[in-house]
């Protein structure tokens, strides 16, 4: 790129192309974590399903915490190896949205345990009935849709809406260990597929440039 003077048409073209190229470089860094977390969520839910079905104990749900730690470490390692891209409003919104999803789901899970122990102290026969899968599915779907909207990717939004609708339907119809498999559906359709859509769009954009 030289320092030559420009026609007005070329000026607008440079502005549009440079902004789009920069936006895509930043988007590329958002695609890989989606694929990573989608795979982790899908694999973990299948593992929990098998262990829960075999042993009959829902305690295997604690593996979600192990998954979060593994995912967190992998995300840091991935960001160190990927092309450095500056932060913009989109990457900040994406980061904060998923960070707060993590905080809300972890906090929600802990609150259920706190409420459970308080109730059991007052009344040993008390039980709390919360459809945790359904609530987390809705929150995950919402965060995914927000991600698609801020990235201006209609295909990602459509994918997330479809994945959330299917997952919610399954969560309402199925109970027990099999219900946990909705996260496998949501992980693949809601995170892995949009991640690949994003990567594909970035690749196409780079080839066109």
């Amino acid at each position, binding site marked *: 790129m030289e320092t030559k*003077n*420009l026609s007005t048409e070329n000026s607008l073209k440079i502005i549009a192309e440079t902004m789009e190229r920069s936006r895509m470089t930043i988007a590329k860094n958002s695609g890989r974590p989606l694929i990573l977390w989608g795979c982790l969520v899908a694999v973990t839910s299948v593992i929990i399903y098998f262990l829960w079905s075999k042993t009959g104990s829902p305690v295997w749900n604690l593996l979600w915490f192990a998954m979060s730690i593994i995912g967190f470490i992998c995300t840091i390692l991935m960001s160190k190896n990927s092309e450095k891209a500056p932060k913009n409003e989109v990457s900040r919104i994406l980061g904060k949205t998923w960070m707060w999803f993590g905080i809300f789901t972890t906090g929600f899970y802990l609150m259920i345990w706190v409420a459970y122990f308080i109730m059991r102290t007052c009344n040993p026969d008390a039980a709390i009935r919360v459809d945790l899968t359904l609530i987390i599915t809705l929150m995950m779907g919402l965060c995914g849709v927000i991600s698609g909207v801020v990235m201006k990717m209609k295909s990602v939004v459509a994918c997330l809406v479809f994945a959330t609708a299917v997952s919610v339907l399954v969560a309402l119809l199925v109970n027990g260990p099999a219900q946990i498999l909705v996260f496998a559906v949501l992980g693949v359709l809601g995170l892995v597929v949009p991640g690949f859509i994003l990567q594909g769009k970035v690749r196409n954009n780079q080839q066109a440039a």
Partner: protein
Amino acid sequence: MEEKQKTFKPLDPLLHSELRLAVMSILIGVDEADFVYIKSQTGATAGNLSVQIDKLSAAWYIEVEKTFRGKKTCTICRITDKGRNAFAEYVETLKQYLQIPKG
């Protein structure tokens, strides 16, 4: 056409250059960007980019911070309010030239 152009505001000469405009287009969309990122996005040579960044910095369109990342030096650039306004005005003027209606 010439008669028509007389009514237009002149384009900011500092921005009306391919590389400086590209640098500003990158910085307008991010909080800050380092020299390596700007170089990779523009495909400019280090020397040329450095000269153009100095010109933008001298006009206070961008601010430049020299820092260290590990043991390596790192030049971070960010757009100033003056630069943001100048860029917006430049785009508006371009629209006038191209007769693009507002909105």
